[in-house]
């Protein structure tokens, strides 16, 4: 198998994008080439660009299995960003019910049961802090935020499928905001999610109170 000319061209683009320095800590800001605009209100967060970009890398690695170096290097850049505060910016800023519930655009009607329009948080509003769960600042340990830890596991998993070096099974810090600094490994995140699935076979919350069928 081979990489197509277009695949190589996109790989070169993603390599430059991923290796352009920026700062995903709370006092920084992701470079504007990371996509926080697509498919609001659920996916319009920078982390989705990181995770979605990994799919092509995994597929390309299967096309050049004796040259995985460029994919792993880019995946490490994506994963490192996913440990930063900005990767969980929704969870770390959207506390309680959405104050804009009554002012949602009509386009959100498809996401909200008709009888609850105006008194219901749109999917994408993470509602950290609502009862009975209370404020949970670690997006991995939290009861909700499945779509954070699940997609992060996809990203980590794709890397582990093409490089067996276990790099991300050494403890690494996430969020890194003073007291809100949390240490995890790839395996520990998977174990945490497994615990949650075992405790709630119907599924885990993405946004608090919302369970999705995938």
């Amino acid at each position, binding site marked *: 198998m081979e990489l197509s000319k277009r695949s190589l061209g996109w790989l070169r683009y993603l390599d430059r994008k991923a290796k352009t320095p920026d700062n995903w800590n709370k006092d920084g800001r992701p470079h504007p080439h990371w996509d926080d605009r697509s498919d609001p209100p659920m996916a319009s967060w920078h982390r989705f660009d990181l995770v979605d970009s990994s799919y092509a890398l995994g597929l390309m690695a299967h096309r050049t299995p004796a*040259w995985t170096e460029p994919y792993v290097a880019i995946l490490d850049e994506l994963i490192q960003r996913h440990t930063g505060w900005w990767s969980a910016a929704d969870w770390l800023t959207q506390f309680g019910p959405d104050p804009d519930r009554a002012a949602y655009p009509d386009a959100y009607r498809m996401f909200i049961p008709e009888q609850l329009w105006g008194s219901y948080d749109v999917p994408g509003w993470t509602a950290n802090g609502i009862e009975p769960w209370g404020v949970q600042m670690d997006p991995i340990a939290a009861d909700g935020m499945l779509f954070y830890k699940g997609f992060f596991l996809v990203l980590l998993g794709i890397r582990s*499928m*093409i490089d067996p070096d276990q790099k991300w099974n050494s403890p690494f810090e996430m969020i890194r905001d003073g007291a809100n600094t949390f240490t995890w490994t790839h395996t520990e995140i998977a174990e945490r999610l497994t615990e949650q699935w075992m405790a709630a076979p119907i599924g885990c919350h993405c946004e608090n109170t919302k369970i999705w069928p995938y």
Partner: protein
Amino acid sequence: MHHKLSVAAAVTTSFYAAPQAPTDARRLFDAACTALGLDADPPTPLRAGRGHASALILAKEWGLTELAERLTRAIEASYEPTWDDDRGEFTWGMSLDEPHPRGQFNAFLAAAEAAGPGMWTRLSEAPLEPCPQVVDVDFPAVALTRAEWVNGCLMLKLAPLVEDPNRTTTFRIVDVEPRLWYLTGIPNATMDVTPSCVIVRVPLVHGTLEFTPGSY
């Protein structure tokens, strides 16, 4: 409370379900494609999004040739494939007129470009088979569009961004047996076999290298 959405949304669900529950994923996918009007050529231009690209990944995954061709035509007509010739970079502008290619949508299109029969499933099914690796390639100035071991021979296809037969590039092949090796395919390519690796020097030209074991 359960909130129902159009079955068209299952084009995303089926993408993630395909490697784990292919039968159910296929049923969801077929229903989603019908809801999206993909039983015939869809009207173009397509709205910027990820759905048609993820559908193309699964059409290639499952060998649905007609659907893949239909989607490819619509995507080509709608999503503004764009080359930056100086950098050798390829992206999709998606007719959004934005300063940066839209990352999430480009990501799905790039995955569709790299997809093929069974590949999305294989990616999550098992780790890549370990094999001696090519390392220290001067990427992105130099790339390998083929790099695989076939019957004990390493097949490499060199793709420099700018060709210059008077200059060379260097890379290493690690974890190979310290034995006699032959390097053929590109004139003036040379190698040094060391106890830990093989160092290859090759002119900056497009071409295929074959790295073949000799006798001990």
